[in-house]
C-alpha cells in the first residue's frame, strides 16, 4: 500500500458514507474510532495508526483504490469490461489477487487478454494493486512475449490488424482472420481497453449495453429499409435468401461477433447466431454490400441447363465449392489429387468440360447470345 492510497482511504473513511466497496468496509464511527471490515475479519474503534496497520498489505484496500480512485467511472463500459476481465462478480479481492498473481485470462473474439498485478518495484512483491494487461491473439497464448512483436501504443493496432497473416486486407475487423505473432504487453488499464476497442471497435460498448439489457438491435428489415442510393435495392432480397446471407457471412467461422439481429422483430432466422463474446446489433456494411450483389443475382430467373457429368465430376464440383467456401484452397497440397479442389484435378476438369468460351459442358450460359455471362 502506498502512502497516497492510505491517505485516500482515510479521506474516504472520514467522509459521510465511508468506504463500502466490494468486500471492504471502512468508516469513522460515532465515537471517533475507525471500523475496518473485510470477509476475513472486522475491527472497530481503531486509531488512525491502527487503521493503517489493518489496511497495510490488505488486498481489499489496494483493490478499492484501483477501482474507485483510478478506474472510477461507475456505469461505464470500460470499467465493466475491466471488472469482467478479472471476474469481480465471482471472486472477492483476496481470491482475485491470488489469481492475478498467475494471470487472469479473458477471451474476446480472437483476443486473449491477461490481467496481472503490477509489481510495486521494491522486489518484495508488495504490489500497490494496479493492474497490468497483455493483449494478444488466442493462438499465441503459449508463446513467450519475447517471441512476439510487442507494441505499447493502442493505436498501432489499427495498422497491425489491417492485414491477415497472408497479407490480405481485412475489411471486417471482427473477421476470424486476426493476424498472429504480436502482443500489446504490460499495458495499464486505459491502454488495455483502448487496444481492445481499436482491434474490435464498439464491441465493449455494445457488450455493456447488452449486459444492461438495453442493446439496441436493428434487425434485417430495420437496416435494409433505411438504405438509400445504390443500397436501396437490398430490402428486396427475399426472406429465404436472408437465411443464406446469415449462414454465409454471420457464422462463427467467419466473424467473432454473435449475431443478435433477426429478419424482423418476432421473426427469427433459422441460422445459428454463433457463440461470440460480444453481440452484433445489425447487419454490417460488408453484409449489406454483399447483399446488394445477392439481391441482383436473386432477380435472375433460374433456367435448366443440361450438362453431362460423371458422378465423380459432380462430386468434385461440390467439393470445389466447399473448399472455396471454407477457405481451404490454400491448404490443399499440390500433388494431393485425391482432393476435389486440387489444382491439377480442377485444371483437368476444366480441360475436359469447358469449351473455348469457358462454358461448362459446352452449354452456353445465355443460349440465345451464345456466350458466357461475364458482365465484368
Amino acid at each position: 500500500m502506498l502512502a497516497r492510497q492510505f491517505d485516500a482511504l482515510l479521506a474516504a473513511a472520514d467522509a459521510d458514507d465511508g468506504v463500502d466497496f466490494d468486500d471492504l468496509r471502512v468508516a469513522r464511527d460515532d465515537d471517533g474510532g475507525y471500523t475496518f471490515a473485510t470477509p476475513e475479519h472486522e475491527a472497530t474503534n481503531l486509531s488512525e495508526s491502527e487503521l493503517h496497520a489493518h489496511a497495510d498489505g490488505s488486498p481489499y484496500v489496494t483493490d478499492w483504490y484501483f477501482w474507485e480512485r483510478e478506474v472510477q467511472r461507475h456505469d461505464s463500459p470500460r470499467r465493466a469490461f475491466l471488472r469482467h476481465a478479472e471476474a469481480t462478480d465471482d471472486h472477492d479481492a483476496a481470491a482475485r489477487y491470488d489469481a492475478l498473481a498467475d494471470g487472469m485470462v479473458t477471451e474476446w473474439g480472437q483476443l486473449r487478454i491477461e490481467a496481472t498485478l503490477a509489481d510495486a518495484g521494491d522486489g518484495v512483491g508488495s504490489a500497490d494493486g494496479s493492474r497490468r494487461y497483455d493483449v494478444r491473439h488466442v493462438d499465441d497464448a503459449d508463446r513467450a512475449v519475447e517471441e512476439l512483436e510487442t507494441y505499447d501504443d493502442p493505436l498501432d493496432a489499427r495498422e497491425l490488424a489491417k492485414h491477415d497473416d497472408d497479407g490480405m486486407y481485412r475489411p471486417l475487423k471482427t473477421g476470424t482472420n486476426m493476424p498472429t505473432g504480436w502482443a500489446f504487453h504490460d499495458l495499464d488499464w486505459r491502454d488495455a481497453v483502448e487496444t481492445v476497442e481499436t482491434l474490435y471497435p464498439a464491441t465493449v460498448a455494445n457488450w455493456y449495453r447488452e449486459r444492461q439489457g438495453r442493446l439496441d438491435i436493428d434487425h434485417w428489415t430495420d437496416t435494409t429499409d433505411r438504405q438509400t442510393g445504390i443500397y436501396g435495392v437490398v430490402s428486396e432480397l427475399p426472406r429465404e435468401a436472408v437465411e443464406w446471407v446469415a449462414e454465409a457471412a454471420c457464422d462463427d467461422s467467419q466473424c467473432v461477433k454473435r449475431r443478435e439481429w433477426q429478419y424482423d422483430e418476432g421473426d427469427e432466422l433459422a441460422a445459428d447466431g454463433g457463440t461470440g463474446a460480444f453481440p452484433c446489433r445489425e447487419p454490417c456494411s460488408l453484409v449489406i454490400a454483399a447483399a446488394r450483389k445477392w439481391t441482383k443475382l436473386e432477380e435472375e430467373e433460374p433456367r435448366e441447363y443440361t450438362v453431362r457429368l460423371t458422378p465423380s465430376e459432380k462430386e468434385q464440383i461440390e467439393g470445389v465449392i466447399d473448399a472455396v467456401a471454407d477457405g481451404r484452397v490454400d491448404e490443399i497440397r499440390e500433388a494431393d489429387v485425391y482432393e476435389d479442389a486440387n489444382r491439377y484435378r480442377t485444371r483437368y476438369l476444366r480441360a475436359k468440360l469447358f469449351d473455348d468460351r469457358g462454358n461448362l459442358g459446352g452449354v452456353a450460359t445465355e443460349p440465345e447470345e451464345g456466350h458466357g455471362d461475364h458482365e465484368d
Partner: protein
Amino acid sequence: MSQALVIVAHGSHLNPGSSAPTYDHADTIRAAGAFDEVRTGFWKEEPSLREVLRTCEADEVYVVPMFISEGYFTEQVIPRELRLDGWDVADWDSDGLSADVATYTAEDTGQTVHYCGPVGTHESMTDVLVRRAESVTNDPDVGEGFGFAVVGHGTERNENSAKAIEYHAERVRDTGRFEEVQALYMDEEPEVDDVTDYFESEDVVVVPLFVSDGFHTQEDIPEDMGLTDDYRDGYDVPAAVDGHRIWYAGAVGTESLMADVVLERAADAGADVRAAIESVRETTRVAPGADD
C-alpha cells in the same frame, strides 16, 4: 463537460489505404490535446457511423466529415447513420458550399452533436491545395512559372462536387501565386486527360481534390494524364508529358495540413480549439519533399 471530435469518412472494403489519412489527421489532432477524445468512424469500416458515437464518452461531440463536397453522404447518409434527431439539411442553410454547422441530439446516445460541413468546402482547404503544391515540388515558394490544376471527379451524380473544385480553383487563382489555375475533371469537360492543352506553363502541379489515394488518384488519373501507360509501373514526379512537366501530387487529403482544416471546422462549430490549431499548424508546417 468533456468534448470529443469524431472524424467520419468513407473507408473501403477493398482498399486498406483509404482510412489512412483519416487516422493520420486524427492522430495529429489528438496530439494537440484540444479534445478529451478524438475518434474516427467510417461508412465502410469500423467503427461504423452507426456506432461511432458510442465509442466516445464525451457529452459534446463535434463531427467533421472527411468528404470533399456537400451532397448524398453529408446530407443523407451521415446524419441518418449517426441518428441525428430532427436532421434537416435546411438547417445548414447552404448554397452547396457554405454548410458550417447544425446541432442535434443523437437519438441513441443522447450526446449533443455539432454536425459540421465537410472539410472539402472549407476555405482553409485552399491552403492545403497550395501546400500540396509545395510538398510535391519540395519548394515552399513554388508558383512563379507554374500552372496549377485542381482535379475533381465531375458532376456525374452531384452538382456540388464541381462547385467545390471551382471554388478552390478560384481561390487559388485569386492568390495570384501561380501563372495559371484550372479546374479539371475525370468525367466531364474540361477533362484531366487533356491537362497539357489547358496550360501554357511548362511546369504544372496537378492536385486531385480527393480525401484519400485510391483507384481514381493512383490508377485512373495518372494513366489518363499520360504519366504512365500502366499505373503499376509507377511514374516520375515530375513526369514529361507533351513538352510539359507534370507534378502530380496525389490526393490532397493525405497532406498533413488537412488536420488544420478539420480543426477549423470544429472551431467554426464552437469548439475551443484555437490553441490546438496553432499547435497543429506548427507540426504540419514543413512541406515534405516529393520523395517523402
